[in-house]
């Protein structure tokens, strides 16, 4: 994207003023180089989002934004139900509540390195990953509905993890307002064998080392220290979320004209929040959020089991769990007035600053942990929500590096074995059932995550807290 075609409103904010059918501005938050690296489709998609009914303030693109479907990945948009605001299945995505959680272990990276290969092998055997993998938990109809209502809270009741985990999860581990009875039998069928599975593509479980500290107060509050080993899990709502997305993207695309919604592109399929369809999607999408929270909770339990077998008595408390594909009902101040809004974050993380969002102590004093995923060979980041993020982007931040290259191009550029060998030489063990999958996820296929988080910090979205380097990566 050519930055000279945008109106620069601050060093890290670029605006497309409202023209034509746009109801608000589109704002891209990034440095000039990241803007240059963005696909022109990001401009088109974020401009289209700015045209949707009931949108307030602006349509935002985060520093890691790239071409998605409907909304760009890295898109944030809030809608006012009292102004005809809409909810969009494409604005949430197929992988509802895909997210990242981090376990802050009391182990050192040196302890992991001492048994690195065996540990990586055992972790890959214990975490079901890859296409066609099956979980060990098979829910009957009543169990499925309980899980879709209770989320991580249900998982803890079933013996996966501890009650202490729950306060370190958005919504305290349970999204209210889920309607499992409305979730289709096909969505439930697709989930039947997939509880406690990682999935494939860019989903992973990593063991990482805390290498650099940027904010002493936040590091203390988060329980991190240099040389510490952490476990990070990136995955979502598995087949259930995918099927909900499939069904509602189609239904909303066909129903939009009946609601008088003129879409700039059919991929923006949406329905008024206050319509029957909008409310129905909201309920099943919330069930999808609970499915993702339960899934990450089960995977946490499996990972802790491996840690315990290798390092008896070790502790791995949950630092935090963030979702980055959601639509959530939140209060935000718009033109001096508190408004109840439905905030879509697609490939974007909530980023509440200090004192916001009912965070538990001691997190409330430093802001919400914002967990930024890496890409096997590259660093990951822990950020803290910045109080300025509310004004900058409705308390939102980036979610990862963002792809710079298509999967197809990556598979032609690298081999899975080559990537594995290169990373092994750097002390990183990668396991995966698919060599091609590793090639498609090669670190070089992603943007420079450091530039992304620096832009996020300078724009006031989230402050840098700690940098992490990978030791072990279990890929789907």
């Amino acid at each position, binding site marked *: 994207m050519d930055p000279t075609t945008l109106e620069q409103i601050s060093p890290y904010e670029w605006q497309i003023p409202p023209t034509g059918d746009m109801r608000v501005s589109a704002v891209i938050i990034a440095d000039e180089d990241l803007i240059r690296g963005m696909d022109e489709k990001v401009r088109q998609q974020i401009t289209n989002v700015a045209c949707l009914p009931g949108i307030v303030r602006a349509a935002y693109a985060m520093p890691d934004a790239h071409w998605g479907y409907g909304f760009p990945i890295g898109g944030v948009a809030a809608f006012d139900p009292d102004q005809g605001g809409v909810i969009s299945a494409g604005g949430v995505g197929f992988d509802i509540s895909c997210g990242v959680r981090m376990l802050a272990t009391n182990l050192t990276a040196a302890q992991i390195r001492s048994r690195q290969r065996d540990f990586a092998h055992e972790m890959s055997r214990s975490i079901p990953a890859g*296409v066609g993998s099956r979980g060990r938990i098979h829910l009957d109809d009543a169990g499925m509905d309980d899980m879709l209502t209770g989320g991580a809270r249900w998982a803890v009741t079933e013996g996966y993890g501890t009650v202490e985990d729950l306060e370190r999860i958005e919504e305290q581990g349970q999204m209210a307002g889920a309607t499992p009875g409305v979730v289709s039998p096909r969505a439930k069928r697709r989930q039947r*064998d997939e509880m406690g599975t990682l999935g494939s593509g860019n989903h992973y479980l990593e063991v990482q080392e805390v290498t650099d500290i940027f904010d002493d107060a936040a590091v203390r509050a988060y329980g991190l220290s240099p040389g510490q080993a952490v476990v990070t899990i990136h995955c979502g709502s598995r*087949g259930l979320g*995918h099927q909900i997305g*499939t069904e509602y993207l189609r239904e909303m695309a066909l129903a939009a004209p009946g609601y008088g919604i003129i879409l700039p592109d059919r991929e923006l399929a949406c329905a008024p929040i206050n319509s029957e369809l909008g409310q129905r999607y909201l309920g099943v999408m919330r069930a999808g959020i609970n499915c993702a929270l339960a899934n990450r909770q089960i995977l946490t339990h499996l990972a802790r089991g491996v840690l315990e077998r290798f390092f008896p008595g070790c502790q791995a408390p949950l630092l935090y769990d963030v979702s980055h594909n959601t639509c959530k009902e939140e209060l935000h101040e718009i033109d001096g007035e508190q408004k109840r809004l439905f905030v879509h974050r697609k490939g974007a993380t909530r980023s509440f600053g200090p004192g916001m969002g009912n965070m538990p102590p001691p997190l409330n004093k430093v802001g919400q942990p914002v967990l930024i995923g890496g890409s096997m060979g590259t660093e990951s980041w822990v950020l803290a929500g910045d109080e300025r993020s509310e004004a900058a982007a409705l308390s939102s931040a980036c979610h990862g590096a963002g792809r710079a290259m298509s999967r197809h191009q990556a598979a032609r550029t690298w081999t899975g074995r080559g990537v594995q060998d290169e990373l092994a030489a750097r002390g990183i063990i990668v396991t995966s059932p*698919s060599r091609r*999958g590793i090639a498609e996820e090669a670190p070089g296929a992603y943007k420079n995550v450091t530039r992304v988080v620096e832009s996020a910090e300078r724009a006031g979205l989230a402050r840098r807290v700690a940098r992490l380097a990978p030791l072990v990566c279990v890929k789907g």
Partner: protein
Amino acid sequence: MAGETGPPGWSHFPHQGDVGVRGIGRDMAEAFENAARAMTEVVAPLDTIRPAQSVTVSCRAADPSILLLDWLNEVIYAMATRSMLFSDFRVGIEGEALVGEMRGEPVEPKRHEPSVEPKGATLTELRVEQRPDGLWLAQCVVDV
């Protein structure tokens, strides 16, 4: 392989985060079959998948592009719920109704090395149309 203007066959077109699948055919049904082949090739090489078992699906839509969406999503659903991969597709379209037969086998991770699972077919770059040369094009972006 078939580009947008090429002969009957399948191809991928670039998308930054996900992948575009395209089928070209002498009629709409063949274009749909080839789009399903393109989608399968995203997961695993077609020539590694034995057409041992048959699964039949059906769907209905007035809009041909929505019919393509439904067809690809039926393939994805069968792959996900049966843990299978398919390499041979036969599609029949009569009016708004599609019946598809696909042949494949259960996923064997060591042999197929499936790289990524399709989550769903999207409305992005969704097109079903007859080209000026009479061939049919069927394409969309698939979320992976």
